[in-house]
């Protein structure tokens, strides 16, 4: 958690100020006809990529906002995403 996270409200802050909220998996599925397998897939299963991952973070010691960032799980650095694809933010 030594890395910096850029909060959309507060700017770059220490990783310690944030809580991780998991990979970005999209909105909650409709409940109708949902099987246990599909539900577990949504709640518990993750892609765990070795690479750039879009994920949720909460600015716990700051503005109390949930937001997404792109993080390279290999370097543990936040990357900025432009139309040309992710690039490392440093």
């Amino acid at each position, binding site marked *: 958690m030594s890395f910096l996270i850029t909060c959309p409200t507060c700017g770059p802050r220490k990783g310690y100020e944030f809580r991780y909220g998991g990979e970005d998996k999209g909105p909650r599925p409709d409940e109708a006809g949902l099987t246990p397998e599909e539900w577990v897939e949504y709640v518990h299963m993750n892609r765990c990529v070795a690479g750039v991952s879009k994920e949720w973070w909460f600015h716990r010691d700051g503005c109390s906002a949930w937001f997404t960032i792109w993080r390279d799980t290999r370097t543990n650095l936040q990357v900025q995403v432009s139309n040309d694809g992710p690039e490392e933010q*440093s």
Partner: protein
Amino acid sequence: MTRLSELPTLRIDPYEELRFEYDGRPLTGVAGDSVATAMFASGVRVFSRSLKYHRPRGLYSLDGECANAMMAVDGVPNAAAETTPLAAGMRVGPQNVRGSADHDRLGFLDMFDWAMPAGFYYRLMHKPAAMWPIAAEQIRKMAGLGEMEPDHRTVGRYTETYLNAEVCVVGGGPAGMRAALAAAQYGARVVLLERRPWLGGSFEHRLRSLDDGTPAYQRARDLAAAVKAADNIRVFARTALIGTYNDNLITAVQRGANGDDFDERYVEIRAASIVVATGCIERPLLFENNERPGVMQIGCAHRLAHTYGLLPGRTAVFSVGSDGGLECAADLADHGVAITCVADCRPEGHDPELVEALRQRNVPFLAGWVATAAHGRKKVRGVSLTALDGTGTRDDSCDVLVASAGRTPLAGPVTMAQGKLAYDSHTGCFLPASLPARLHVAGRLTGLEDPAAIETSGHGAGLAAAADCGRAVETELRECDERLGQLPGPAAGSGLVRSPTHGRKAFVCFDEDATVKNVRQAIDQGFDVPELIKRFASVGTGPGQGGLPGHNLPMLVAELRGMPPESASPTTMRAPMVPVSMATLAGSSHDMCKRTPVHDSQKLPGAIMRRIGAWRRVRYFSDDLLCRAEVRNVRTNVGMLDGSSLGKFRLWGPDALNALQRIYVSDMAKLRPGRVKYSAMCNDDGCVVDDGIVIKRADNEYYLTTSSGRAGQTVEWFRYHTRYDGWDFKMVNLTDALGVINLSGPNARTVLERVADARVSNDAFPFSGYREFTLLGRVPARVMRLGFVGELSYELHVPSSYMRAVWDGVAAAGTDLGIANFGVEAQNIMRMEKGHLIVGSESEQRTTLNDLGLGFLWSRNKPEARTVGSVALAQTLEQPDRLKLVGFRMDDPEHTPRDGSIVVDERIRGWVCVARNSDALSQAVGMALVDEPLSGEGTTLQIYEDGCGGNLATARVVPMPFYDPGGARIRM
């Protein structure tokens, strides 16, 4: 031992004596000594015994790079004597010895090295399995470092500091100082870290003149003075780097000096740019007995003389691989040490000036020669040398053998920040090959040896760091690069790792007693890469953190496996780079707790306060831990409790109801103004995370309470589970803005009538009602009628700023009735008697709403809300074999099992959540989570407690609530 007292490089005051004690003997050092140099000055040569073989070990590096000079200092084990400043009255003792370091009764183990091959403790002592516990105990007794008394308490001031710097320079040598000055010259705020007590690095102790005629030590002092004079450079001396991390985070540990308000402190720095100028350490030459006391590094011998005024011995042999060794030999010859010969493993490429200096001093210089074995039992008595081309051998006697194969750049700070190293055949070193963003390297770390080049590279790195901070440095940086290009580049170094030797005791890692032979054994067993061999043969896993073997291990493995040196890669460096005491990591103790607005009014005589979550609250108001008087007063009269820690929230906006429907399991559309609604929150597994009250104050305007421990996460929880919806609602945490008084007991209404500016009769304000009115004529209050403790009960929520006045007013209004405080434990007993649960006490991570018997709270008629937990609740509804919450009564009314005791039959079937001796019921009752088949009424539960000696207590499952099952008392 007499000291050289006239050298300008000395850091000691030879005339100020300091007395200390070593192994019970009184010794004397001088001001400026380290513990190790003071011992050396007093004639101590054997400093410790090694980990496995109990071999004698002596002074080796002076920088704490190995465990050789680890001592117990004032009761603290594993203190690095080389870097611990001597203080008067210190008590110093040896470690890992039976007897003394000189005469260790376990010294015979050195002859049994054949019985301890690489990884022997993994392989040999597990068959039969019963042998391992015995073997482990014996190994622990014979091997290891210091011992600590179980009741040891570290005394001292341990603090921490968090710095903000634009540029952090690691290493206060010439390159680091020039970098700091260059960045500071452009206005950057600079922090400079130096592990030694003084700045100067490789120049600091050297008399040799630089190109302009200035002696190196003088140049170092001039630079240090310039650094000191710069306003925007802060120097942290005696500060060793622990680690570097992402986004330029640096951690370090600083030892305090006279005048500091700490003994040791943790330092953390976030910098916009980092310059690493950590220089080099020396790498050990691998030959037989290469760690005999008397064998030491060039820098150790050189600095013993120049920094501490101590001659390392009378007769010295050198076996080195760098120009620094020749310089040291010439200097020691000048100070009166007889230099028998200087062997240099480099056949050519020596500095001609230094070769000439040796010739003038009549010191035999043997180019292309190397030591193969040191002789002598406890100290070096002689050495065998051989020509690398096989043309000759010789034996010399000596009492000091200065041995070093070359330099190892201290690149840990670079690789920990995700930089990469590559083997460079010109220097024979692993040099930084790729760097992370905003991290620069300079000086000897990059292979440079020429003094002007070292300084210029530092200057350039400082400019580059200033550029990272937005300073315009282009012109000067370009000029600096051009100048550096004209200066000598990295100096050639020897690739030699191992001298041609065939013995069994050439040590790759001193700390772990790992030899060349052990590395070969590991390879023979199939371990092919240094990372695996490091673990199996414990090379570089000791207190030195792999610094000394960091170069030799990968090169040796490549050599033994017949691979080219370029294929080698060093093992991963990890924090901590230096051993850090637990006291420093613990730091100063800040118990930051929250206090309620009426904290002081709770501190009555006899009150026992406890840390409960973030708060300090009164748990008991007397030393009766059953709280009988407190409970009785509430059950028969009236009591008041400070409940201000309760979580309190305002939730409003057009989508507020949507948010409530998503989070709470109940149907919040049915809320009616003036009524409270009890409900629960589940997680996506249907497990209960919190319960509380929701009140609708107006359309789109809600007030809700949560448990004290959950208040900090409630906003986060609401926002998380609505993050995709884009709903328009707002939430404010009012926990600290409002205080709460819980007024309970049959006489509660009488008291409330006296302070309320409204009618509060049972008709006007019935059970489950919610009212807003003023108290004491002016204080606005939100009042709800609840029954957590099972009696007529009101909860008064008032602004924190008025809380004290209201508390005193309520207390005064009840004085004639005998109103009294009750505490958290009394509340706990009463709510348990009433069968009310506390999330986290009667539930755990796996407990669903259905398990708790609260399934009735869950509304299945709002699938469009996609309520958190609803899917899992539906899917687990019929799941068998879940733990269910039950009430039980102990068969023995006098015996109460401790909370957390387990329910057993042939196996564990559940656990006791809470159990108390109930004064009101004259029974011992409680709640437990048990396997569903045991949850039927009348079932006997067997309860196992710690220390019960197999005598199980028995209890019977009974219906809840235990107290006032009809609920008449809360409605009275």
